[in-house]
């Protein structure tokens, strides 16, 4: 057989439509046929061949992939010119080279899998059936060497089975079921070698003497014969021929008999097994069932040639010239809608690679395959609804269609000069390099405290705005405390700050606060919002992740240490790859690990895709400030981001998986009393699930410390152990398969429709991804992000810092720096801050300093009618913006005021039901996605589902009810009253004074004292009754007064 079987191009569609008229002589011999030559991406949808009931069903564990054409650009051909010329030279060198790998490639998973199976149109029960298929076993090292003989023997396994039942993805079709294929011989002369065999049942094998060679195409023929007559007799005998000649019928290479077998064949499929590794790739094609030996053997059964596709009898047999024949037609009939950067429905036809599905994965035509061309199908559609050009326009003429088909069959020659491939580029501001601007010469240079003010002042001047006066010192101290550490100053701290009258007092205070361990608790929380971090899997069962807290502590420490932002990103994106290994790096991968595990346990392909989508969306949104999620299904409508870009970014992550990962430091904190920090109902459920998994032998106890993170099977440190994960169905961890995993475009975002392979890369518009990128891929992604030339990362981060200080960013859409994002209010300030960040070694604290020490930051909150008419929303910062405290800071502030806050930093979480036993900061309350602490639910904290760049501020009636009636607040009011009473003795005015100062960092004025007395001494009579006038209030009155103070707007807004 050899070349013809491999190289013939088959017109399956034609066969299906007009079965066997002339093309396939002897077609009576054919029962079923599929040459398995599919256009990209449609194995599950296309219903090609003859004699079948439906299309192939594929396994979710490993979907067979169609060998792409052309292959994904090799490193030598990354630029488009190379891709295209490579393609065309392939055409010139004849069909052999380009078609060598056509077919469907089955990959191993290291486990039992039925990658593809198909039902016959009618069940077969005749006396004799012949089966043929072609097989090409690509060895593990085909790429590197041409060796055809394996060195040592790597056991292999692949069979074709014929069964009555379909079975599932993992069924073994081996109990009395005929199998034909390759396996490691366990006896006979070829014992220990991979040889071709037939078997009926796993123990009933006939080994041939033919040994498998890698990278050779075999033609396998088998005959099934019934032991008796009639439909109920079993197919008890099988014979096998490997690469036979027509006269070989009498001399099979192996034969087997069995007392028991099946009596009817309805389903046929391929199986891989334990020995089929992910690196093994097996190409299969030409699956034929027939009535005679010569029948299935002869390639003449297969359609012989790709006859030029005529259309309605018109055959275009002259050479087609693109420029003169095709181009004018496309231009006049297609390009009105399908040209340029924003084509209708996202399909553009003026770029060659787009015909091949470059950015969307959807293929319109491939050279010489007009029979598979979606474009031809569309222009030739019968129904107006399905046809292009659309209803209202005349359809293409039959001659035009025939010409297009001929153009495709002649190789789809393109004119690059006429229709060049555009470079993806954009003049959008955010994609341009950061250019450090000069600091403006401020008109009011007295007002300038840091360079920030110079930029702000220029805008004020330009718009005629007058900045508000500087805030009072006590206000500023409270503002800095709340803003930088998320806690109000205690009266002692306030007094100390006010007592410092040196000119550098504020600088000292800022340094003091930036050095406080509580700074990381405040600012790390913003990052946790971006990282959509939580301590559970999410979705239906929302099973807890007992060691996710380590990542929370990692983030807090990173902020406290002022870790370089670039390094911070690198550890989070690639911590498992970094060398030398450190536990800290591994814990950092909790950023990727924070992805929820989709509740779709029944469909591992969807579940897996959901995790990857979560990772890509969070990464692009949090770090790049790009909303890429829509490119999951189609090219971005506004931004120059293609669907291909989306899957290229995803390709960085496809070799890894979430999990519990082992730590190495023998001194690592290793708490094991999970019930101590997991909320009781969640812990009870967790224990139940553990038991189930133990029973199913899917879980073994862990004795080393571990963390929740992300590990790549290919590039992660090989010493890292992945420990059991408690989940309804454990997420798949098959290192062999993961090592080989490749990025793929999913057509229209459907996990069941994988399209072309893509190499890892960042969005094309942001620059070329080096082709050398391979080994530590995520490290290189992180390096690219932290490169000073990256236009987005530094801008996005300084803008976030700005937003967290002022409530709104210089770019108000902090996670959308794309074309549709808001324009920066102060573009030069943004660039100055970004370059300042880079110049200061990506120090976040350096940015805090230039901001909080500025006059801009230190303004009062003060309304100004004229300013408000010019800039009603204070975008240009003519006064301190109104900012409510976040949920965490509200609760934390209450605890500072009452003196109850336990200031311990880090460690395991606190279950909300036990918060009273350890009144720690809110960031330490256990974060189960489906059951967040009530104060967080109440005050707009995110649910840890998607990256959150800015919390909304809602005002609903349940908030005051919580603040006034919850048990938590009632207890705090009592605690505050207690402390106030202790400090002020039995003196009413002193009580009012102390309570105000503790709560609001200021004393009361006369009117406020009066109002306070109305609560504290409601009974007028007793108030004026002489010597008791200044006696302290009763405990309950004092409690009610304290409770009211904790409800003031002034208390929950940053002054």
């Amino acid at each position: 057989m050899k070349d013809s079987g491999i190289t013939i191009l088959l017109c399956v569609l034609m066969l299906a439509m007009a079965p066997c008229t002339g093309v396939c002589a002897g077609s009576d011999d054919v029962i079923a046929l599929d040459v398995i030559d599919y256009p990209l991406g449609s194995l599950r949808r296309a219903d090609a061949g003859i004699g079948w009931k439906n299309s192939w069903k594929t396994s979710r564990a490993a979907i067979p992939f169609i060998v792409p054409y052309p292959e994904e650009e090799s490193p030598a051909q990354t630029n488009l010119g190379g891709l295209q010329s490579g393609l065309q030279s392939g055409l010139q060198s004849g069909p052999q080279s380009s078609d060598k790998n056509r077919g469907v490639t089955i990959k191993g998973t290291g486990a039992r899998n039925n990658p593809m199976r198909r039902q016959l149109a009618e069940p077969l029960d005749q006396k004799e059936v012949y089966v043929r298929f072609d097989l090409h076993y690509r060895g593990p090292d085909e790429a590197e060497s041409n060796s055809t003989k394996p060195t040592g023997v790597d056991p292999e396994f692949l069979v074709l089975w014929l069964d009555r039942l379909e079975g599932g993805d993992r069924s073994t079709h081996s109990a009395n079921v005929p199998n034909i294929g390759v396996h490691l011989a366990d006896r006979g002369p070829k014992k220990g070698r991979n040889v071709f065999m037939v078997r009926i049942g796993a123990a009933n094998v006939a080994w041939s003497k033919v040994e498998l060679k890698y990278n050779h195409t075999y033609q396998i023929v088998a005959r099934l014969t019934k032991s008796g007559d009639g439909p109920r007799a079993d197919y008890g005998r099988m014979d096998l021929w490997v690469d036979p000649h027509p006269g070989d019928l009498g001399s099979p290479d192996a034969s087997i008999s069995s007392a028991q077998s099946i009596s009817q064949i309805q389903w046929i499929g391929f199986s891989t097994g334990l020995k089929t590794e992910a690196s093994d790739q097996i190409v299969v094609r030409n699956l034929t069932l027939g009535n005679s030996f010569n029948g299935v053997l002869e390639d003449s059964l297969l359609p012989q040639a790709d006859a030029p596709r005529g259309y309605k009898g018109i055959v275009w047999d002259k050479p087609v010239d693109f420029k003169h024949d095709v181009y004018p037609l496309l231009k006049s009939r297609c390009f009105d809608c399908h040209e340029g950067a924003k084509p209708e429905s996202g399909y553009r036809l003026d770029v060659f690679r787009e015909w091949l599905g470059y950015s969307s994965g959807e293929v319109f035509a491939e050279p010489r395959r007009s029979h598979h061309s979606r474009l031809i199908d569309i222009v030739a559609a019968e129904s107006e609804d399905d046809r292009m050009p659309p209803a209202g326009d005349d359809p293409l003429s039959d001659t035009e269609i025939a010409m297009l088909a001929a153009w495709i069959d002649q190789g789809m020659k393109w004119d690059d000069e006429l229709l060049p491939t555009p470079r993806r580029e954009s003049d959008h501001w955010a994609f341009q390099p950061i250019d450090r601007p000069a600091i403006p010469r401020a008109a009011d240079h007295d007002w300038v405290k840091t360079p920030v003010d110079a930029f702000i002042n220029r805008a004020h001047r330009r718009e005629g705005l007058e900045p508000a006066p500087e805030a009072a010192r006590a206000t500023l101290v409270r503002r800095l405390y709340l803003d930088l550490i998320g806690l109000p100053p205690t009266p002692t701290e306030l007094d100390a700050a006010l007592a410092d009258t040196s000119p550098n007092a504020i600088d000292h205070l800022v340094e003091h606060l930036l050095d406080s361990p509580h700074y990381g608790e405040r600012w790390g929380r913003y990052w946790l919002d971006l990282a959509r971090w939580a301590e559970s899997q999410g979705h239906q069962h929302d099973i807890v992740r007992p060691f996710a807290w380590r990542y929370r502590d990692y983030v807090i420490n990173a902020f406290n240490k002022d870790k370089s932002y670039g390094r911070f990103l690198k550890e989070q994106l690639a911590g498992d790859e970094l060398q030398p290994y450190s536990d800290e790096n591994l814990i950092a991968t909790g950023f990727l690990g924070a992805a929820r595990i989709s509740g779709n346990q029944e469909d591992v392909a969807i579940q897996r895709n959901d995790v990857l989508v979560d990772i890509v969306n969070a990464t692009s949104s949090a770090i790049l400030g790009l909303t890429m999620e829509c490119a999951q299904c189609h090219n971005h409508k506004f931004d120059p981001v293609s669907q291909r870009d989306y899957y290229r970014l995803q390709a960085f992550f496809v070799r890894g998986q979430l999990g519990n990962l082992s730590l190495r430091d023998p001194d690592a904190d290793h708490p094991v009393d999970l019930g101590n920090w997991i909320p009781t109902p969640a812990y009870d459920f967790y224990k139940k699930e553990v038991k189930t998994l133990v029973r199913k032998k899917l879980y073994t106890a862990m004795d080393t410390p571990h963390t929740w993170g992300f590990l790549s099977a290919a590039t992660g440190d090989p010493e890292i152990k992945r420990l059991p994960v408690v989940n309804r169905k454990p997420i798949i961890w098959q290192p062999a398969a993961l090592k080989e995993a490749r990025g793929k475009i999913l057509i229209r975002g459907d996990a069941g429709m994988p399209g072309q392979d893509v190499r890892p890369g960042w969005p094309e518009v942001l620059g070329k991804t080096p082709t050398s990128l391979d080994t530590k891929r995520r490290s290189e992604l992180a390096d690219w992000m932290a490169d000073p030339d990256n236009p987005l990362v530094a801008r996005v981060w300084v803008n976030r810092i700005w937003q967290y200080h002022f409530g709104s960013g210089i770019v108000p859409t902090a996670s959308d720096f794309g074309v549709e994002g808001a324009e920066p209010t102060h573009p030069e300030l943004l660039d100055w801050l970004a370059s300042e960040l880079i110049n200061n070694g990506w120090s976040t604290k350096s940015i805090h300093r230039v901001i909080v020490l500025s006059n801009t930051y230190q303004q009062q909150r003060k309304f100004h009618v004229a300013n408000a008419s010019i800039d009603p929303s204070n975008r240009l910062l003519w006064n301190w913006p109104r900012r409510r405290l976040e949920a965490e800071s509200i609760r934390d502030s209450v605890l500072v005021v009452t003196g109850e806050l336990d200031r311990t930093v880090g460690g395991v979480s606190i279950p909300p039901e036990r918060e009273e036993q350890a009144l720690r900061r809110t960031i330490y309350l256990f974060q189960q996605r489906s059951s967040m602490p009530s104060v967080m639910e109440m005050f707009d904290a995110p649910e840890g589902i998607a990256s959150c760049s800015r919390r909304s501020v809602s005002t609903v009636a349940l908030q005051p009810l919580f603040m006034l009636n919850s048990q938590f607040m009632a207890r705090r009011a009592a605690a505050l009253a207690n402390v106030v009473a202790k400090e002020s003795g039995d003196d009413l005015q002193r009580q009012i004074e102390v309570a105000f100062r503790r709560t609001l960092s200021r004393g009361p004025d006369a009117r406020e004292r009066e109002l306070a007395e109305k609560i504290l001494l409601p009974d007028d009579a007793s108030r004026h009754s002489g010597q008791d006038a200044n006696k302290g209030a009763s405990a309950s009155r004092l409690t009610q007064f304290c409770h009211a103070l904790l409800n003031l707007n002034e208390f929950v807004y940053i002054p």
Partner: protein
Amino acid sequence: MLIHRRRMLQESALGFGSLALTSMLLRDAQANDASPTVAPGAHHPATAKSVIFLFMSGAPGQTDTFDPKPSLAKLDGQQVPDSIAATVPNIPRSGVGSKLFASPFSFRQYGESGIPVSSLYPRTAELVDDMCIVRSMNHRVPVHGPGECIALTGTGVGDRPSMGAWMNYGLGSEAQDLPGFMVFLSNVTGPPPQLPGWSAGFLPAQYQGTLVDGRKGVPYTDMPSGYTETDRRRQLDFISELNHRHIGRQGPDSELEARIASYELGYRMQASAPETFDLSRESQHTREMYGLDQKETSEFGTHCLLARRLVERGVRCIQLRNGGWDAHSGLESNHLKGGKRTDQPIAALLQDLKQRGLLESTLVVWGGEFGRTPTIEGSRTGKSRGRDHSPAGYTMWLTGGGVRGGQIIGATDELGYVPIERPLTPADMHATLLHAMGIDQHRLSWNHNNRDEIPTVFGGEVIQEVFA
């Protein structure tokens, strides 16, 4: 346009004058320029003012409730015929390889329409002439969690707003002193239900459903012990005056004023919620009608009765979730319990709404996250037979709120596996519910991450024939 105005008011940083809660203000603003027949915030005249979603979580079997299949009885114990097996989509656990399982429940025709209903729902069936049965629902996800997300938010991921949140956002609540969207859980078994089913997703948190314990009412409405009404009033007066002084020092600010107003609203809610949730005010007859006096029906009956009281008070969306329908084994006893728990309360709710003239403005919807297979799960026998999950074809029904009753929409094949007529998706159902509320699914939008998001992101068309 109205919607944009609403947002403008909510978001403008410096509003003037004394703003009430923004939603209250909005109602006034919209009332002024809206045509009288179109509800504030609505795009077209609504056929319903409130929605009660009777969500049967765990998924009751369609062939055991509202989609009788006589062929199933004939083929009991046999394999699924090829002709039907071939049409069942490739969904895990579709059970096509298992044996068919005739419904253990009998069906009878009811009402003038003669629509058949199983013996699980004899009382509800008395109202079948008001009900529109949709027998051709289908989607592709056979897992509870994502299935619930699809049923209630439109996608399986759980990150989008629930339909209730969209309605609450689009229309606001007519109830001045109650949350506009409330959720009650009954017969919760196993893991906690899906938060996304009533979450606000990317909408502001104020639109999320408030989870309410039917016995306790709205959370945090009980004052700390020892507080009197007068004490609270004094506190509120103190808070209000200090808050006004605070605004006075720094200038007008809508957000701060909204927070001031929220204290008054909270106070009213605290005052009125206990009354709303106090079922002792209902007559003995009513309480018995809802089954409050029986063990099996008292929990769900309480929720149904509360739903009526909330509808009377103008609450926009009420979701009553009843769990426990996941009959993988012992379907007969499982569904008998489910029917017992829900039939009488649902019938009482419908009758009660009807007799009070509320049914015509209240849309009531019944259904689970999917249906169940016509086959036995695994190889159980006898009474232990159960059915697996089947999203490929299932039944929901609607009544009230403009629905044309006594009709059946769509049909499944002779076994109840797959729709063969008018296949409909949860997205179609969502479009229909929004439509009934006067909302055009394409026009209600919220700008999230700089994209105008709409409720039905994956399409979905209004099922026009639902309406009279």
